[in-house]
């Protein structure tokens, strides 16, 4: 029996294209369920996270051994992601309603989604793009993918800030060599939305 990983395209460009297509399809599918309430949001979030994680694993991504230094770098990155919009953004604040109860379930599903997004985007996709076109292509394309995947839910207004966040998270990946740092930064930024 041929395993999924064994049948995965070996060319870096092919791998990147497959991952992008899978990410796009998953993001579109998820957006179709927006507006269905809290329970649906948890179910869809879990399914979305597991789908992305499966794609990343199928493409060859494996979690590396966790290093405390990477987590520290990730915490700094998270502070930057939260702090800059707080410090230099407008004071007018809109609430987009991401405080679903119960809190622990929200934390768990958010952590799954974040880990999966980072495994796919800054893990599998960035590695494939780096192998195919070098770091500049990898950073640019993975950041664009990160921004576009949010458009179906948040609208085009999200593109500038998510492009920026995508670049920052890609930088953390290059700096530390793994996905732990961008995952930690991303998780902190998402957790902060409960309070901000």
């Amino acid at each position, binding site marked *: 029996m041929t395993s999924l990983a064994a049948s995965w395209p070996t060319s870096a460009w092919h791998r990147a294209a497959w991952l992008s297509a899978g990410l796009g399809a998953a993001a579109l599918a998820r957006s179709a369920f927006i507006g269905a309430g809290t329970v649906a949001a948890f179910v869809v979030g879990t399914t979305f996270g597991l789908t992305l994680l499966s794609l990343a694993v199928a493409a060859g991504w494996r979690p590396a051994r966790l290093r405390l230094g990477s987590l520290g770098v990730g915490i700094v990155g998270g502070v930057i992601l939260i702090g800059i919009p707080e410090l230099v953004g407008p004071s007018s604040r809109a609430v987009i309603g991401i405080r679903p109860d119960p809190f622990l379930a929200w934390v768990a599903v958010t952590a799954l989604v974040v880990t999966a997004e980072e495994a796919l985007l800054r893990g599998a996709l960035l590695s494939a793009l780096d192998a195919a076109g070098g770091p500049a292509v990898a950073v640019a394309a993975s950041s664009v993918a990160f921004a576009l995947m949010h458009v179906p839910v948040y609208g085009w207004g999200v593109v500038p800030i998510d492009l*920026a966040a995508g670049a*920052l998270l890609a*930088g953390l990946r290059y700096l530390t060599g793994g996905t732990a740092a961008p995952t930690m930064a991303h998780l902190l930024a998402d957790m902060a939305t409960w309070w901000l």
Partner: protein
Amino acid sequence: MTRRSRAGWLTIAAGVLLLVAAARLSPVWHGPLYDGVVVEDPYRYLEPPPGKPGNPTSVSDTLTLDQGVSPQLYSGTLETPPQAQMIADRDAFQLPTGTTSIKASISPIKPPAPIAEGRISGNVYRFSVVNQAGADLSLLPGTTITIVVRAPNNVANGTLIHFNGTSWDRVPTDNGGLMDLYATNATVLGDYAVLVSGAQTPEPSGQAPPSFSIGPTPSATPGPTGGQTPWLVIGLVAAAILVAVLWRTLGDREP
């Protein structure tokens, strides 16, 4: 310094600069939109179409002054996300002599007047800020208040409109954080709603528009609209990539 760490530092620096630029240019602050679980409850109508939820909430917040000036204000209805919000900085309002507190209220109302073109999507909301004596407060010159109105789920091509006392005016509209949230930095309070222009967009519930709409009857055939176009573009690009890769991959396996 290795190639990898150099790329890391350069990318982080670029990311920080982009983040500053994006935050500065954003007309309305909202929580970092890097993802997570996105919850949006079904829209609540003041006059619900058959099978759709009714009983939209109202809100009224009383706030004491902050060292003699109006306090920072956030007020939002109780749906998830709120169907109407208003946000004002500290010292945004002109206060009549003797003012000790202010009351900010948001409530859904029946449309005060029909619209000439298009249709109202969802409820009309009345935004007001008064002092303890009930006197309407107006904004100080040069200040604005952010008004955010949510349209029914997935209505993505709306524009905010404001009732000027006799007719509706379109106001500059920004994205409020989700596809169907609309925001504007307004200089006056009053009645606001989301206008959907043209006849091409059906109510996402699939129902006829609420009875107060006087615009053209929406087409029964969903077609590409301004708001849906990005979805279609992304979907088509993803599908094209998928087909191309499938074709190439399967082709590679030919003997």
